[in-house]
């Protein structure tokens, strides 16, 4: 696994502050951010920091992971509807009991992976359960 500082640097807004782009024409969000709207094709977009608060739609418990993520396995991945209305998939952390669909979640800053050769650490966004109550 190769973690390269330029790649982490140019990606800082996406991973460190969950930044999306919002279309000035149709209002749709694009995440990860792009300088174009993936709904209507308009290039008039502005960056917008997402709240990092949302609701868990559903989740999976992944046993078979990727090289570099073995120490985290098994991993919960949640499909989350952020309060801005867009859906993203993210790892869930600090899960003590089985997550419930409808639970409220929030973004937290965590270690993603470590380069096995040079020891560089990549950080990014994961989510934790704020209250784990079923809502439908």
């Amino acid at each position, binding site marked *: *696994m190769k973690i390269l500082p330029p790649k982490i640097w140019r*990606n800082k807004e*996406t*991973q460190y502050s969950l930044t999306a782009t919002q279309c000035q024409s149709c209002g749709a969000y694009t*995440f*990860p951010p792009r300088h174009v709207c*993936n709904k209507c094709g308009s290039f008039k977009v502005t960056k917008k920091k997402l709240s990092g608060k949302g609701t868990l*739609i*559903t*989740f*999976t*418990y*992944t*046993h*078979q*992971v*990727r*090289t*570099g*993520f*073995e120490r*985290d396995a098994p*991993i919960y*991945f949640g*499909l989350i509807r952020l309060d801005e209305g867009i*859906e*993203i*998939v*993210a*790892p869930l952390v600090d899960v003590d009991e089985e997550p419930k669909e409808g639970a409220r979640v929030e973004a937290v800053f965590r270690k*993603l*992976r470590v380069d096995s050769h040079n020891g560089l650490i*990549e950080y*990014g*966004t*994961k989510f934790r359960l704020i209250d784990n109550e079923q809502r439908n």
Partner: protein
Amino acid sequence: MSEVFVTGASILKVDRYYENNIIDLAIGAISGLAEEISIVHPDILILANAYSESTTEQVLLSEKIASSLGLRVPAIRTEQGDASGGSAIFTAYSFLKSGIAKSVLIVGAEKLSDFPTNHLNDILAENLDEEYSYRIGMTQSSYAALQMKLYMKTYGVGYDYFAEWPYQMHKNASENHYAYLKFQVDKDTIMKSQIISDPIRLFDTAARADGAAAILLTNGELARKFSESKVKVENVYGSSFGYSMRELVAVREAWLPWRDFKPNFIEIHDSYSVIAAMILDEIGFERGKSLYNIADSQVNLSGGLKARGYPGGATGVYQLAEAYMQLTGTFKGKRAKNAERGAVVSTDDLGKVAYTIGLSR
């Protein structure tokens, strides 16, 4: 405008080929067309391959294959993840239709079996967006698992619904001479198999392996040089959409022009049982019930990715070769009844892009 015909097809058994590299496999598949390409010299060679940079540390493979064959012709590679095969067919069809080429040799080749599972998961995750999904450690199976949970909720089906797919695919593959997993399996074994990403189990996933397949497409004039019954490529359509959890828009749009075609059999890209269900739902099967009808509807008589095996970006070339063999009555496996028209749906593993190909004889 010229008409386009499949003039010959050759496939290798999907398997683990420890003794052979990717060029060996490509040449092995092409050697099955030795007679055809001695009569019709290909004007263009197209390689369908998705993962060679990561699996074999190789680029410029299309030139290496062409020059190995002594073909001094344009040689290009198409890459669209698992849909590389479909995109190669689309490209070849366009060259022939336009008259730029009179014959195109397509070869699909992929090596997936050299790696431990987690490493291969990392390579396949290159299909995800680089800056977010890849970095957070997502796997393709995690994504498909979320789609499966939404599907279960939307249609009120349980895991047993999805078990229909591997059950039928293994049944089909048990007759396929070229299948990687040539055995039948009972539903109990499927439903108790190892959990990969809950609720996806081992039998819901594709059997990753090595493979190569080759096809010679020609215009009508050259096709007449061969006495075998002719198989016409009616058309090739494609679409791209992006991630969608609840539907496969690219598949739906690429299928739209075929809605009155009524193929007698069809080959789809069943990377996961849920993706098989979602593809069938988009191409006219009853939504939420498509997997209940597969035995009668002649879907994936090869056994699909599930059991014929999954050779990455070469898969679409296998699908077209199998459809050709069905239409010419030369398929060494379960034969389609009333095989007059066949269709192929070539997609990436999560259905973001799709190519649809219609054949008739």
